[in-house]
């Protein structure tokens, strides 16, 4: 049986260096393998921090609790009906608050800045309608609609405003929020909110497109990791 190895070995024997080199290939692989085995789990990219959101920040409730019928106010720690006081105390026409009650009310409702545009002077538990008619606090939308007709039409269609509960009233209770469950009637403009934390995924947004490059850099875990590495190496320089 011919042996191919013999043909090579005898006519041209390999040099000493090649023999040593050949013998080292195996151990070299072994060392490399060990090295890979030890280091393969060393590099883990950190995740961006999980945003913290309090349950009450996302609670599915109306923004505010409006006055119901009969309307009451907390006066000196007691629930008082409006007329309990207003039977006795006459109010000025211009919204001047001479006593210490209702000082927290800020009127910011455009040209509609007089109390008796909406409140009935003689019965403070009712609201004003056109033509000397009155209505109750729970029917506040009728009063608002006198000026805000188009919005009121949208609201009746369910286009303006918020509906909680079921998307079809036949399936379960539906609660269509009234004007004052979202808007403060004295200052109906919407307040500004502090935004909740943004996304933290890598692919979200092109750093060049946004206006906040530094914010982007902070949120991008890959970049933050690179920045940390750079920062650490600089610290090393300082110690030397």
């Amino acid at each position, binding site marked *: 049986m011919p042996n191919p190895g013999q043909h090579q070995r005898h006519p041209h024997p390999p040099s000493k260096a090649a023999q040593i080199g050949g013998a080292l290939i*195996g151990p070299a692989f*072994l060392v490399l*393998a060990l090295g890979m085995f030890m280091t393969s789990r060393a590099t883990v990219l950190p995740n961006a921090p999980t945003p913290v959101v309090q349950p009450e*920040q*996302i609670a599915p409730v109306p923004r505010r609790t409006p006055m119901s019928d009969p309307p009451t106010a907390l006066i000196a720690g007691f629930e008082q009906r409006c007329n309990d006081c207003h039977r006795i105390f006459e109010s000025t026409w211009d919204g001047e608050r001479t006593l210490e009650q209702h000082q927290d009310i800020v009127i910011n409702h455009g040209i509609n800045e007089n109390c008796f545009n909406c409140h009935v002077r003689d019965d403070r538990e009712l609201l004003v309608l056109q033509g000397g008619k009155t209505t109750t606090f729970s029917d506040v939308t009728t009063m608002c609609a006198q000026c805000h007709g188009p919005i009121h039409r949208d609201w*009746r269609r369910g*286009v303006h405003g918020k509906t909680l509960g079921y998307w079809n009233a036949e399936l379960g209770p539906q609660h269509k929020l009234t004007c004052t469950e979202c808007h403060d009637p004295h200052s109906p403009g*919407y307040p500004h909110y502090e935004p909740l934390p943004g996304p933290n995924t890598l692919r979200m*947004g092109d750093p060049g*497109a946004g206006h906040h490059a530094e914010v982007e850099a902070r949120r991008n875990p890959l970049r933050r990791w690179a920045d940390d590495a750079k920062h650490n190496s600089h610290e090393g320089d300082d110690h030397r």
Partner: protein
Amino acid sequence: MKLPVHKSSGCGGSCGSASNHGVTRRSFLRRTAGVVGGSAAFAAALSPLMDIPEEDRQFDVKKFLQKHYKEMNADEMEAALARVREDVELRYDVRPEIRDIKPMDGVEFVYALNLSRCIGCRKCVHACVDENNQSRDPEIQYIRVLEMPRGTTDIEQGDHHYDRPKVPDEDHYYMPIQCHQCANPPCVKVCPVEATWQEDDGITVIDYDWCIGCRYCEAACPYWARRFNFTTPTIPSDKINTEMSYLSNRPRHKGVMEKCHFCLHRTREGRMPACLEACPTGARKFGNVLDPDSEVTQILRTKRVFVLKADVGTLPRFFYYFDERDPFAQSVPIPGAPS
């Protein structure tokens, strides 16, 4: 090529006659070192498999043999739900109420979003995470809110990472984007295993046990609405929403896709989606477009609505509108009003 066979170990007396067999001490050592080194290198190449966490290495026969969602009969579905229940209990130490909820008859869901009212507070984003058992570390969010400069609807100019002390900013408007539940969904077309499909009520769903994680759907979606679980989802036990359904918010595993499903475990029972309930301004509207009196139908009939990237032909069921009134809106009767 014929490999040299090691006879040296068992060859007894003939080992000395090296010239006969071509095995010298040197060649033996070299080959042995080569074999040992080679197998060590092979083991090292496989070593990243050691990084796979324990729960991912477990082979679940029941899961492996489980059929596709559409092929399961009632008994098989019950068995699958029991398996998922056990799996969730093992992973998160909570007992979930998991069901399979079918679409309602005569219902096609549509979403409408009023861009004049959205203030960019991101409450919807986090209400969604709270509802749908997304991974918290890293956190997966279905809804992204773009801060858009006024005067354009080019979403390339939008910024996800706005971080102002207060919103809305007067020079910007805000555009939340989530799954548009397209009537002509490109994500469904590209799925090689039919793990995602459109249901009768218009919601595109995913069978998380059938998904192979190829991410074709993620690439196909023009709205970037699909998310991939790159890591094993981490959810603190106290944050788990135990009200689950098979096709919506049951916890996912590593390596599968997920996306917004219009909270189908809520909406298929008549309730509103979580993002809508959390919205402080009422910018979000949801309902049945087949019902002429529903809020969304009223919006489609009386407002000027648009869809994102209408030119790609996906026919989204997610409509945007500004609060400009259509001059012909008055001719549309108000539901419930005497005509």
